[in-house]
């Protein structure tokens, strides 16, 4: 930023004041211009629903009964914060997000490294590896529940039986692990794509030079590749987390939030309130609380963890 300002200032001393301000203003609008269409579009399309949601959260409206919404002020929020299932749902959301995104990123990194080097049939393997991401999430959830994890007919238990073990009813005995496995399977390709793009954008000559200089593969990975990938890793983790927080299909298809409420996360709980309880006000209040909570967590995380928001690493404009 300062680099741009300096030359302008140096030139400005030769021009009259008004023209300098006008030029600065033009420059500012020239920069804003490209941003505006996307920004305005997004504001209109997302803030209207958000405002409506906040609006409805102040009413009580049971869709399954006749009668129109009636004002209850903040009592929906009171109900949210005294609901033990809500806090359990928050916990489960955090658990699922942390573990799934963590594993998916690590696996994605490993797979991206594998794909970065040419080998026979690389294009095919690349397509195979992104296939979990292409399947409809509902179908993916069903695949895991019925064909992979089923205690009698699932492939995983078939393999266990071949090795002489006793079959495990995964969804019943290990519901959290089942959900996480489904989510990781679906999101690893996403992380892999982002990290692969990052790897492919690395200048080869630097790596070449390091290799010629005798650096081991591991050392050059640690010292050269990882720092280059840092911004991609942050991007992958941030985006992955945002999506995984909202995981719904995996839980709906695999465990239905159970047994009990063991795998109920926030979106699933909101779904229960909205489509089984038909409570528009309560589910809206839950949604607003989720947004506020995620905003707080995200802004803390972004400022603490991600270099994006600490250093001014915008390009050398």
């Amino acid at each position, binding site marked *: 930023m300062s680099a741009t300002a300096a030359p302008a200032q140096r030139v400005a001393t030769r021009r009259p004041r008004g023209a300098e301000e006008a030029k600065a203003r033009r420059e500012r609008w020239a920069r804003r211009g490209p941003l505006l269409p*996307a920004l305005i579009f997004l504001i209109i399309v997302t803030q209207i629903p958000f405002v409506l949601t906040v609006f409805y959260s102040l009413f009580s409206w049971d869709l399954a009964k006749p009668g129109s919404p009636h004002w209850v002020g903040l009592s929906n929020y009171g109900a949210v914060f005294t609901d033990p299932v809500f806090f359990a749902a928050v916990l489960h959301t955090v658990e699922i997000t942390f573990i799934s995104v963590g594993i998916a990123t690590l696996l994605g990194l490993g797979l991206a490294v594998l794909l970065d080097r040419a080998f026979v049939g690389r294009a095919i393997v690349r397509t195979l590896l992104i296939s979990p991401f292409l399947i409809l999430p*509902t179908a993916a959830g069903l695949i895991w529940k019925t064909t992979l994890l089923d205690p009698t007919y699932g492939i995983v238990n078939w393999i266990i039986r071949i090795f002489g073990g006793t079959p495990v009813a995964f969804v019943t005995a290990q519901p959290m692990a089942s959900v996480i496995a489904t989510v990781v399977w679906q999101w690893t390709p996403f992380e892999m794509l982002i990290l692969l793009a990052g790897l492919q954008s690395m200048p080869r000559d630097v790596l070449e030079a390091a290799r010629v200089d005798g650096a081991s593969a591991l050392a050059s990975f640690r010292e050269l590749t990882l720092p280059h990938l840092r911004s991609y890793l942050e991007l992958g983790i941030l*985006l992955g987390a945002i999506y995984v927080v909202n995981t719904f299909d995996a839980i709906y298809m695999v465990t239905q939030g159970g047994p009990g409420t063991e795998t109920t996360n926030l979106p699933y709980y909101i779904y229960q309130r909205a489509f089984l309880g038909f409570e528009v006000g309560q589910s809206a209040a839950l949604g607003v609380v989720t947004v506020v909570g995620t905003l707080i967590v995200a802004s803390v995380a972004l400022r603490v963890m991600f270099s994006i928001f600490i250093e001014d690493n915008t390009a050398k404009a």
Partner: protein
Amino acid sequence: MATVAATATRRRPRRRRGPGLRARLSSVAWATLAWFAGIVFFFPVLWMVITSFKPEAAAYTSNPKFDFSPTLSEYKQVFSAGMGPFLANSAIATVLSVLLVLALATPAAYALSLRPVGKWRDALFFFISTKMLPVVAAIVPIYLAVREVDMLDSIPTLIILYTAMNLPIAVWMMRSFFLEVPGEILEAARMDGADLRHELTEVVLPVVAPGLAATALICAIFAWNEFFFAVNLTSIRAATMPVFLVGFVSSEGLFWAKLAAAATIASVPVLIAGWVAQRQLVRGLSMGAIK
């Protein structure tokens, strides 16, 4: 450089051998590992495809049957259920929303990276914050709002919502790729007197083309597989493939083979898109080849 020369003189006279045994073994191991990973990840999908060729009553057996006589009966049932309009709706909604997303996100990402606005941090944060509201919570308000403007069951509604859904991620991703454009190219272009449009189209975009492809692919996948808006805001005219697919899930009756067939068909376009787009990723940034 000196070290290399020194070692070179110590080595035997240079008969250019091919890669040594060690190198060859390591590349075989590499390929094997990669293929193994690919197969493991792909296996559930493969199993679903295999199941789609089994008759319904035999779709499940406790020891998975690998030998069976394939039948197209389930596919026939899927096709006779009238898949055409759903496929068309999905295609239109996906293609148009992705184009719109790219058209909006590319300049926006530019304005947040290469020639940034003052408050770029806030803008970025706003973009990502729009994805924090779980759609489930807002769906009834959205349903009522869409109904008020008489846009229930229409494809433009889906296009608008999918664009808004994908815009944040497109902006964030494109921004990352823009940041990779080496400064020297930009300087060279600016010194040549290129204006914004020229700078974008002739200089920057070719460099970020693989990133554009990755972004387009990811947005296309999200739009194609989007289920919640589709099922709640469409009914007859604008219903998309996910809605068609889920119509095979039955609470009383066996449906797994039929669903597998429908899911396989639904995945084919996305698979083709994936295959096409990942070739772009291969080409890599042309910068790497120069020097």
